[in-house]
């Protein structure tokens, strides 16, 4: 038990075995629900409701996926969601990256209040700003456009991204920029040349968070979009929900398809996940 709570090479074999068993159980709990969704998506239409718990169903086929891609508007929704989410990430991260640098390196008046304010915006109940934004969108004639959506998604993601990035910039020693400035770079150039490359993990995580929020956002999209060709996937799901309630396997196939891009992105950025998520992290 001596070194149970931290890095140790000296774990006894029995303890190591125990740790592996616990972790394997935890992993099973973590992934089983999704594996079930995958398994249901492979079921043929005749075996819709079943009390079978095995992961590969009898007569497994990709028929549901084919039906979904060939017969529904599914590809349009995916395309629209990808576009909106990517644009949100670009705008949101650019705005936050610059602002966070100011919060990290200058102690201007109102800095503390600004940070507290950003945290406070996270507390606004979801749906609270929906009606005002809807009225604005109608007045500005942004109804049925992506512009309004992307704008509000990126503005919504900016406060959290600023916190995340500020925390990370704080851990980068100022001497590095000062060295660059001695070499004749201005402060902006120093930021661009020194800080941005060094903060890849935090930028990646800020981007990932913005993407995830935009990717499955539903309420705002429902208010802003009415043209069927412009639907993002959460709207499309809503539209097909009645069909899905009788076609649970189609719903499962659709779920797998929209979960995959998000999961791939997570996997891809997982190498940065731990180092990039510094919410006011420790300083050595």
């Amino acid at each position, binding site marked *: 038990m001596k070194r149970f709570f931290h890095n140790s090479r000296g774990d006894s074999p029995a303890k190591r075995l125990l740790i592996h068993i616990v972790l394997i159980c935890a*992993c099973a709990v973590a992934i089983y629900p999704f594996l079930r969704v995958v398994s249901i998506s492979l079921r043929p239409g005749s075996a819709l*409701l079943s009390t079978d718990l095995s992961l590969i169903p009898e007569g497994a086929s990709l028929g549901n996926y084919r039906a979904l891609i060939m017969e529904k508007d599914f590809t349009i929704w995916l395309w629209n969601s990808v576009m909106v989410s990517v644009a949100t990430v670009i705008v949101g991260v650019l705005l936050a990256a610059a602002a966070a640098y100011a919060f990290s390196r200058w102690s201007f008046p109102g800095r503390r209040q600004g940070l507290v304010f950003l945290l406070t*915006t996270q507390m606004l109940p979801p749906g609270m700003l929906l009606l005002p934004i809807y009225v604005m969108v109608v007045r500005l004639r942004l109804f049925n456009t992506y512009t309004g959506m992307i704008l509000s998604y990126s503005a919504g993601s900016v406060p*959290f991204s600023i916190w995340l990035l500020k925390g990370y910039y704080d851990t980068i020693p100022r001497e590095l920029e000062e060295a660059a400035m001695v070499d004749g770079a201005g402060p902006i150039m120093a930021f661009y040349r020194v800080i941005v490359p060094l903060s890849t993990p935090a930028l990646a995580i800020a981007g990932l968070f913005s993407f995830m929020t935009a990717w*499955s956002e539903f309420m705002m999209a429902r208010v802003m979009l009415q043209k069927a060709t412009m639907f993002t996937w959460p709207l499309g799901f809503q539209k097909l929900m009645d069909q899905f309630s009788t076609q649970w396997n189609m719903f499962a196939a659709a779920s797998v398809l929209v979960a995959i891009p998000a999961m791939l992105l997570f996997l891809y950025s997982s190498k940065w996940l731990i180092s990039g998520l*510094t919410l*006011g992290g420790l300083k050595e």
Partner: protein
Amino acid sequence: MIPLTWGIMSSGLQETVRFLVIVAASTAALEGLAYVVLHRMLKHKYALPIMLILPALVAVMALVIYPFGFNIYLAFSNMSMYRFKQFSVGLSYGIQNLLDVFRHPVLQNVTFMRLLGRTVVWTVVNVFFHVLGGLFLAILLNRPMRGKAIYRTLLVIPWAIPQVIAALAWKGEFHYQYGFVNLVLQRFGFQPIQWLSDPKWAFVAVILVNIWLGIPFMMVTILGGLQSISPEYYDAAQIDGASGWHQFRSITMPLLQPVLTPAVILGIVWTFNNFNVIYLITRGGPMEGTDILVTSLYKAVFEFYRYGFGAAYSLVIFVFLLIFAGIYLRVSGGFKGVEER
């Protein structure tokens, strides 16, 4: 069915690209203006940080502050579905809306105070288990071991699945007859449970789902914190003969505090405001038995079309969350480690 044609693809793409160009151009114009005014003309001491913050500030102003102000205005109105264009505004409406929040059941059955109590239970139970589970897994993972990367990747999956999908998938799994939760219970010889039709069990079900969803975030955050604690502290403690538990209490926990406090605050805020899980799994039912504040807010506005009342109600919820987070900050000692840099 509408096929995905090049026409549809490119029209969406054109709009998005045009939007990005406009954003870039207006940012450049804004920065140029700020540069000339602040730096050249006023020689302002903080010209540079102001310039860096300006674009984000403008975006947040236009899309958060302005709508928030508009929301306050709506709270003093009698706007509803029938009075969408011709609503009137006045102090008396504001007072009326505010009193309505506390006076009558918010929707049909449940009063504000009961919703508040349920929301606090929901938040405290969830965040407690998020931190407990996250801390436990992070400690197990924070050692050199085989398969560490695989474990870490698999354990993050609940977080990586879009919440909407996860919630809907769980809803199916709580089905009385076909959901795996009851099937597994029966395999082990237990009676199946009426998960979604009994309000008590329905509340347990949504809490279980949300705990499952929230552990990975805490695990990752805490793991980052643990990795930045220098092993030398532990070596020194070992020489002094400190036990594992003692090391945990006097080294790990205090040094984890600067990471944990903001993570817990965010956890509280996100959980308090979590709409998706409850709304998608139970719609707040049965009999409003699993509604928390934010789901009843959504229903009041978008199912009962009480816009003026909803605006006032959302402000009340916001204030209560502020108080709730404030209490936590007071108790936990706040942002000491975070602010002073």
